[in-house]
C-alpha cells in the first residue's frame, strides 16, 4: 500500500500549481466580481491541457488518468472555485459521456475541439421539475426522418453560457419514466436553442449557470448518444464520475481557505502574541486539516478505483459528500479565524465561503449521496 503520489503525478501537481499561482490566482477576485472567467484564462487552461486531462491522446486529450484530473481540478480550485467547476463540468459531464458512450465517429467529431478547450462542454439534465429525479424529465424528443426534434427547457446548466457542446437528455414519452430517456450530443448554437438567463448566484459567480429554452430544436439522428432509452443509465454513470470532479473542487476550495487561515493565524497578533498561540485557534486548525486530509484520501481513492477499473460508485458518493462538507466547514472556520477581516471581500476567504456551499448541492445533493451510499450498504 502506498499513499504517496507517483513522480509523474508530482510533476503534474507542480506544473499545475505553478500555472495557478501565476495565471489563476491573480484574476480570481475579478472572476467573482465580473461574473465571468476571463476568456484569456479559459484559453490558457485549454493550452495547458486542463480541458481534456484524462481523455485519450487520439481524441486530442492529454492521455493522463483520473487522479491527474482530480489534481488539476483541486489545484485550480485552491485559487478559484469557478475555474475549477468549469474544468470539472466540461470534462466529467461532457467529454466523459461522449468518450464512454459515443461511437468512433462521434468521438472523432466532438472530442478534439472539447479537449483543446476551443469549445466548452456542458450537461443538460436538470429541469425545473427534474433534478436528481432524472426519470421525471419533461423535455421531449421525437424522430422526424433523419432528425430528432427537441422541445422543453433546461435550468442550472453549468458552462451553458458558452453555448458550446452539450450532452442533452430528453424523453420520448413521459409515462415511460426513466426508460423513456435518451441522450443526445448537441451543438448549442443550433436554431431553437435560446439562453433565457445566466443565473445570479451566492458563489462560483464566474461560472455560468444557464437556463435554456429548447423550441423545436432539430439535431441530426447521428447525434443520439448510446441507444434510445439508455439515457438514464448514461446520466447516472456520468454523474458517478462527475462527483470525483466536484469532490476535487470542494477539496481545493477547502485547501485554499486553510492556507490563508493558517498564514493569517501566524501573522495576526492579539494580546502581544500571534493568535495561533491560542488553543482556540489551534483546535480550529486541527479540525480543519483533519477534514481536508480525510476528504483528500477518499477523493484520490475514488480516482484510483476508477483508474484501475474497479467499482467506485460508493467512494465517489462518499468523497463528494466528505469534501463538500469539509469545504463549507473549513471556509466558515477560515472566516472565523480572520475575524472581521474575514467578512470583507479583500481577504478572499469570504469568496471561498460563498463558493463552497454549492458543492454540497450540485451533481447530486449530499442527501442523494447518502441515499447512494446507504443503498449500496443495504443491497
Amino acid at each position, binding site marked *: 500500500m502506498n499513499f504517496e503520489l507517483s*513522480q*509523474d503525478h*508530482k*510533476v*503534474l501537481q*507542480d*506544473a499545475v500549481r*505553478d*500555472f495557478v499561482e501565476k495565471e489563476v490566482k491573480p484574476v480570481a477576485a475579478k472572476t467573482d466580481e465580473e461574473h465571468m472567467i476571463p476568456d484569456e484564462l479559459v484559453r490558457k487552461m485549454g*493550452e*495547458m*491541457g*486542463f480541458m*481534456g*486531462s484524462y481523455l485519450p*491522446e487520439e481524441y486530442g*486529450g*492529454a*492521455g*493522463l488518468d483520473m487522479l*491527474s484530473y482530480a489534481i*488539476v481540478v483541486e489545484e485550480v480550485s485552491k485559487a478559484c472555485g469557478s475555474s475549477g467547476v468549469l474544468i470539472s463540468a466540461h470534462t466529467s459531464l461532457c467529454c466523459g459521456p461522449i468518450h464512454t458512450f459515443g461511437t468512433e465517429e462521434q468521438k472523432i467529431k466532438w472530442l478534439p475541439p472539447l479537449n483543446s478547450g476551443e469549445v466548452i462542454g456542458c450537461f443538460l439534465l436538470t429541469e425545473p421539475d427534474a433534478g436528481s429525479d432524472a426519470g421525471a424529465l419533461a423535455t421531449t424528443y421525437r424522430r422526424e426522418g433523419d432528425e430528432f426534434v427537441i422541445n422543453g427547457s433546461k435550468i442550472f446548466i453549468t458552462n451553458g453560457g458558452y453555448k458550446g457542446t452539450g450532452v442533452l437528455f430528453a424523453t420520448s414519452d413521459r409515462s415511460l419514466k426513466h426508460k423513456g430517456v435518451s441522450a443526445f450530443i448537441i451543438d448549442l448554437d443550433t436554431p431553437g436553442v435560446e439562453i433565457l438567463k445566466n443565473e445570479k448566484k451566492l458563489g462560483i459567480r464566474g461560472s455560468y449557470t444557464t437556463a435554456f429554452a429548447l423550441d423545436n430544436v432539430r439535431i441530426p439522428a447521428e447525434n443520439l448518444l448510446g441507444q434510445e432509452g439508455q439515457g438514464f443509465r448514461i446520466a447516472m454513470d456520468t454523474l458517478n464520475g462527475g462527483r470525483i470532479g466536484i469532490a476535487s473542487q470542494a477539496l481545493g476550495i477547502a485547501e485554499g481557505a486553510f492556507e490563508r487561515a493558517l498564514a493569517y493565524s501566524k501573522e495576526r497578533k492579539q494580546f502581544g502574541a500571534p493568535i495561533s498561540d491560542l488553543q482556540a485557534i489551534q483546535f480550529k486548525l486541527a479540525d480543519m486539516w483533519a477534514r481536508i486530509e480525510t476528504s483528500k484520501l477518499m477523493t484520490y481513492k475514488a480516482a484510483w478505483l476508477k483508474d484501475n477499473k474497479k467499482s467506485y460508485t460508493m467512494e465517489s458518493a462518499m468523497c463528494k459528500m466528505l469534501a463538500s462538507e469539509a469545504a463549507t466547514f473549513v471556509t466558515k472556520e477560515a472566516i472565523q479565524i480572520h475575524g472581521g477581516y474575514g467578512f470583507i471581500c479583500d481577504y478572499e476567504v469570504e469568496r471561498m465561503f460563498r463558493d463552497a456551499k454549492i458543492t454540497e448541492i450540485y451533481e447530486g445533493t449530499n442527501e442523494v449521496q447518502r441515499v447512494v451510499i446507504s443503498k449500496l450498504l443495504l443491497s
Partner: protein
Amino acid sequence: MKILVCIKQVPDMESRFRPNASGTWFEESDLAFRMNEYDEYAVEQAVQLKEQLAGEPEVTVLSIGPDRVNEALKKALAMGCDRGVHIQDPAPQDKDPWQIASIIAQFAQGEGFDLVFTGMQSQDRGSAQVGVLVAELLGYACATTLVGFSFSDGLVTARRELEGGIKGVVKLGLPAVVTCQLGLNTPRYPTLPNIMKAKKKDVLTIPVADLLHEEAVAATARFYPPEKKGGGIVLEGDVGNLVEQLYGILKEKTTVLR
C-alpha cells in the same frame, strides 16, 4: 548539434531548514523539492534554441542525485528536452563543486556536446562554480550570468549581467558552456499533453561511482542557522516617562550621550 542541460533539484526555498545530524548540511526529510530556478532558464533557453533550429539539435538533460531528481528530469523532458540522464547518487550534498563538475565532465567527454547550458548557481549551495569548472575540464569556452542569448552562424552571442546593472556582450565559438541568470527568459509551463509525452522519453541511469574519480578539494565544515537576534524593546507610559526611559537606555547601553 548536441546540447546538454545540467540541472539540480533543490528544496523549496520557502521551507524551514534545520541542520542535519552531522551538522554539515540541512535535514532533507519533509522538504519539498523542485528544479533549481536558474536551471529552468537553462532548460528554456536550450529548448528555444532547438525550436530556432527547427528541432534538429538533440537536447539531453542531466541531473545528479537520489531517485527524487527524476521529478526535475521529467519536468525538463515535459518542457521539451529529448532525453534524460540520471546520475544516481544518494548523497550529492557530500560532494564539493569540483567533484560534481568532474562527474558531469566525465559523462560529457565522450558525448561531443556542442553547447552546455546550466544555471549560474544553485539556490541551495550557491557556489556558482560547477558551470565554469565543467567548461575548464572539457576545454570549452565559457560565459556566465547570461541575461541574453542568441545563436547564429555557429556563434553564441551572450549578454552578461555585470555588477551595478552594467551589461556586457560576449561572443563565443562552439563548443561552449553558458550559465543562465534570472531575466534570460520566461520558462514555459509543462503542459499536460507534454507531461504525458515525457513519460515515453528515455532516461538513462548511471551509478555515480562509474563517473567519479576525483577527491574533494573542499569540505563543508558547518551548516547552521544565523544566531537569533534579541527582540526589540517596546516602551510604554506617557511621553515624559518615555523620554526618561529612552534617555536611560541611550546613556547606559550606547555611547551617544557620552
